């Protein structure tokens, strides 16, 4: 006889069905999933960093220019500030959401978008400047990796701007529904994560590149 038979479970006491189960929390489930996406995006950047690392030896630049000859850290510093202020503005927007202020959220997101657009504008200008100098991805493996890393980040920022635009429309049309709030939280994670990636890019690509 198994021990379970010696101490039988009382059939009147046992709980077999969860009568008062409320189901899962939609926003927290959504947020967890977005964390998972951020993790995979982190791996994407890690791989690009690895490629940049492997392709940043002096021979990787073939006979073409090295970053020291074309990056402009002070110019890029303005980009950095634009992105950080954009994240800050988004943070204000999220603080306003806690008080339920629609105007505060919208203002924050608009400010965040403007600063994000400044970042993208400066990036495009910088790329055009480098291309006019003959610094293009086709020149060498090193430059290919430089462009891949920086422009994949810029593409993420661009997607973030489209997302913000969509969110502005949804806030105005629907107000703070469960879906909209969940999306705003996910967008915050996305935006902050892109800023963190930019810190690494600024340090390893622009500053390090300038000094080496």
């Amino acid at each position, binding site marked *: *006889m198994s021990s*379970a038979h010696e101490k039988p479970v009382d059939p009147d006491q046992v709980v077999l069905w969860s009568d008062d189960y409320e189901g899962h929390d939609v926003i927290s489930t959504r947020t967890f999933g977005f964390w998972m996406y951020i*993790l*995979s995006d982190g*791996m994407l950047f890690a791989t690009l960093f690895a490629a940049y690392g492997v*392709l940043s030896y002096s021979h990787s630049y073939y006979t073409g220019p090295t970053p020291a000859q074309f990056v402009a850290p002070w110019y890029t510093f303005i980009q950095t500030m634009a992105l950080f202020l954009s994240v800050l503005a988004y943070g204000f927007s999220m603080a306003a959401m806690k008080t339920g202020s629609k105007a505060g959220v919208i203002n924050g997101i608009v400010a965040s978008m403007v600063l994000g657009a400044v970042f993208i504008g400066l990036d495009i200008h910088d790329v055009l400047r480098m291309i006019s100098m003959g610094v293009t991805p086709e020149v*060498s*493996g090193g430059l*290919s990796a430089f462009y891949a890393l920086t422009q994949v980040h810029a593409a993420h920022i661009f997607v973030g701007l489209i997302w913000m635009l969509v969110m502005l429309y949804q806030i105005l049309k629907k107000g703070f529904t469960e879906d909209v709030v969940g999306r705003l939280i996910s967008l915050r994670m996305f935006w902050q994560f892109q800023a963190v990636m930019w810190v690494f890019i600024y340090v390893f690509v622009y500053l390090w590149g300038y000094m080496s």
Partner: protein
Amino acid sequence: MLVNLPGPWSPLLGRLALSEIPYTNPILAPLFVIIVLAGIALVVGITYYGKWGYLWKEWFTTVDHKKLGIMYIILGLIMLFRGFIDGLMMRTQQMLAVGSGHNGMPLMGAIHGYLAPFHFGQIYSAHGLIMILLAATPLLVGIMNIIVPLQIGARDMAYPYLNALGLWITAAAVFLIMISLFVGDFSHNGWFGYAPIFELAYSPGVGVDYWIWTLELVALGTTLGSINFLATVVKMRAPGVTWTRLPVFTWTAVSANIIALTSFPCLQVALALVGADRYLGTHFFTAGFGGNLMLYTNLFWLWGHPEVYFVILPAFGMISEVIPTFSEKPIFGYITMVLASFAIAGVSWIVWLHHFFTMGMGPYVSTEFSVATMLVGIPTGVKVFNWTFTMYRGRLTFSSAMIWSIGALFLLLIGGLTGMMLSIPAINYMVHNSVFVVAHFHMMLLCIVYAVFSAIIFWFPKVFGFKLNEAWGKIMFWLFSAGTFLVFFPMFMLGFMGETRRLDWPFNLQWAPWFDIQEVGIAVYVLSVLAFLWLIYVSIRDRAENRVGADAWGTSRSLEWITDSPVPFYNFAMVPHVNHRDEAAWRREHGFSDKRPEKFAAIHMPNNTPVAIVIGALTFVIGFGLTWRIWWLTVAALVLTVLVMIYRSGKGDPGYIITAEEMEKMDRESRQKMDDGHAPLPKGGGYTGGTVTAYSAEVGDPGSQSTPPGNSRPLS
């Protein structure tokens, strides 16, 4: 920016031209005609029987995890067949082509055998890619899709719409690789590709482009799926399903999806960089201009090795469900089983270099990767011993699901031990790129296939409400095993005799007898395919006799076996409260098997959506447009995709409510439709009748000092 193409290009059709359709090829042209005719017959048939509405409503727009899982499995089985046909063609080529010179029977313009080297190259490339990413992966994802929510007591996956999206993007990848048969070529550089031969200068055709975009689409679909699985297990567990009560299969799904989530981005980046080289003229992997050839190989296998554990871990999980059920014992060493899964997942990240020891990274790096590779043997060994100890003194029932699982253990043993040999760099240098390696990883992948067939037979009654035919399941097993033996044991031999992989012309006449044996093995495999089809036919024909109740095997253990068979679309009428790790066994033990919920509550279910299949179709168009460099089409499809996503985001899904009264009615109907709930207990092995009592005791359980399972059941 855009590279200059060798050959014509037009803005409207890109590189596409009528000459790209191989209508003169004596294999592809008839195949194309057959497929078109079959397609027309299918369309006419569906129209005649008026089933389009049914297909659209019930399948194409569904977000039900079980139906999506079934479609994943069908997709996987079709691609398994396609990959098998590729294998058959390769075996036949080598059998015909072996010899020192012209073998006197030139066919189809080939000097040796019947396939020209370029064609042969496409076949082995497609075979590898299909088998790993479009057969094994969808089969495993499909089974996880069906079973994981059931095992944790959830009504669906965390994101039902994302689940559908993953399926249709994977389907888009399947369509892309299938269309490469009839429009243009496929890559001939092996399934993992070699730098720099995949560069535009050396592979000017569209084959490599097909390869890039097929892989990118699968990677995208699988990443979305892995996010969904992790969120489901973390957030959707029913009350009482604590982490230590998760079934081992769900644990392996968690560990596997952590691998998938973190490793697939490496593949996506590696291939995007190949794409940049081919489309934009960058120099990531070129032989000159500062490119680095081995960077590609490293990035690819940085994904590639975690990927092989992504496919093997769920297979281990399936074996871990089947063996306890048919041993009538709880899994031996549950905690070590879980830890071993995560150990394998962790080590998978630090072994990738063993795929190319011959890169020549020096003794220290080689040693590190050699030792790390050997470490994999420890958790895997733990698992094998746990399965063995589960069977030890158990009441074994050698049902067809069980023998497929036991077969998987044998293949795992052979594959594992040859893997240990290959982990030693000194040996690896000798057999690198020989068919010995090919035979080794086929043992591992066939271990997965065995586990998948075991799982399909095991869970089929849960999903469809009737069992598959036992006798034909066993016949198929023995045919398949004979085929495996006859094809791959000669391959080990040939590896030692020095045959390198991917030979369209094996020149050494002494190999001829081994190729002949392999061809016999392939013929036996063909018989096993027929046996499988017959198995499906016979089982559907006799379904009335094989209907099952909730507990289909009478000895089942985990939570999915307490709900009705077939599983109703809402999974559980009431969310269960879980009291034990082996909930079904525990309820059976305590006489609660027949208890049904008395109180019902309203539930919230997601609506069907056509958005997922539309986005899937658009991603196919994007892949096709990129492959043929039809820029307007690519951009249009991309913009449309984004617009559809925004539209769906704006619309949202309010879902719908099933009231408590409706739920009660549906539960009653589901009960009546089902068999009486008392499946005939399995016959055979050590089964002696009586009620089944063995269930695993947990720490802190009342009376957790259980007696040996052999004595735990009163004998009748």
